[in-house]
């Protein structure tokens, strides 16, 4: 690229960056700095960096809104309930609370808990504990998020790992029994993507926290 188009591109990018930046003052600060950079190549790099900075700040501002935090909290509660679902169904089946098992079975693929009996019989207690622990960790992470403390994403991520370990364990049981808990693999994949996306968002929210002055 010759020098000629670099400056107009940098100027256009910079205008965009200033518009994206949540604070107009900071947008203007970045934009005016461009005028002081003589070298067009450096100016272009500067402008590209400012676009990135603008989107970072825009994203961080969005993550701190009450609506976004409420939606995220709701999502985490749903994910926690999902983790408690299988332990509760297995508990209901094993303790002969068949009414509850039937009720929960209506929420499974196939609408009948009896389809899952071979898996529920074969599932070891430690897998059930893994899921329950993942659910508890999600709820504790939610509590930490609401209190705006830094540990939320670590707890949530640990919950994701436990969840994943539980699913991997159940896969071998599914293979041995010939019964699948989730007939559509994409649904399971989408669930994991959603869970890890929440972990990422929690991490971003935490990394934006302000340093403390003691």
């Amino acid at each position, binding site marked *: 690229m010759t020098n000629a188009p670099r400056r107009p591109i940098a100027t256009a990018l910079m205008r965009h960056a200033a518009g994206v930046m949540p*604070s107009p003052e*900071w947008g*203007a*600060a*970045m*934009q*005016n*700095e461009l*005028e*002081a*950079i003589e070298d067009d190549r450096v100016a272009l*790099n*500067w402008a*590209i*960096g*400012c*676009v*990135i*900075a603008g989107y*970072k*700040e825009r994203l*961080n501002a969005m993550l701190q809104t009450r609506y976004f935090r409420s939606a995220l909290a709701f999502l985490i509660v749903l994910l926690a309930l999902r983790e408690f679902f299988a332990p509760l169904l297995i508990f209901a089946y094993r303790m002969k609370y068949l009414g509850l098992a039937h009720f929960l079975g209506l929420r499974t693929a196939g609408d009948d808990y009896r389809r899952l009996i071979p898996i529920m019989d074969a599932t070891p207690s430690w897998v059930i504990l893994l899921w329950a622990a993942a659910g508890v960790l999600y709820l504790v992470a939610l509590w930490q998020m609401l209190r*705006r*403390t*830094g540990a939320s994403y670590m707890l949530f991520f640990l919950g994701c790992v436990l969840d994943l370990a539980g699913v991997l364990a159940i896969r071998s049981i599914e293979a041995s029994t010939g019964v699948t808990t989730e007939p559509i693999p994409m649904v399971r994949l989408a669930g994991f993507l959603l869970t890890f996306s929440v972990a990422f968002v929690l991490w971003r929210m*935490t*990394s*934006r*926290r*302000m*340093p*403390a*002055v*003691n």
Partner: protein
Amino acid sequence: MGRKLIHSRQTDRLLAVMLKEPLVWRHGYTLMKQTGLQSGTLYPILVRLCDQGLLEAEWREAENSGKPPRHVYRLTSAGLAFAREQIVPVRRKPDALQGAKA
């Protein structure tokens, strides 16, 4: 204000540069050259430190007429105390501030 500090290597690098001459006002572009940080990294840190009261920013008329005013930054007294507290222990570790230009 009692929350635990999360400070990155890049923030340390910026604070270390500003600590060398704490009373000097610096432009964003100057800070980029002195710290070696890209603008995409530098500005979010500047915003964060200003929000927290560790840096102060003000507009200065450009030296060349016809150019727009520029933002300049320097440590506040709280920022100076904070930087001394954070950076001095880090300096004892070799390579902790590697990349910060003199």
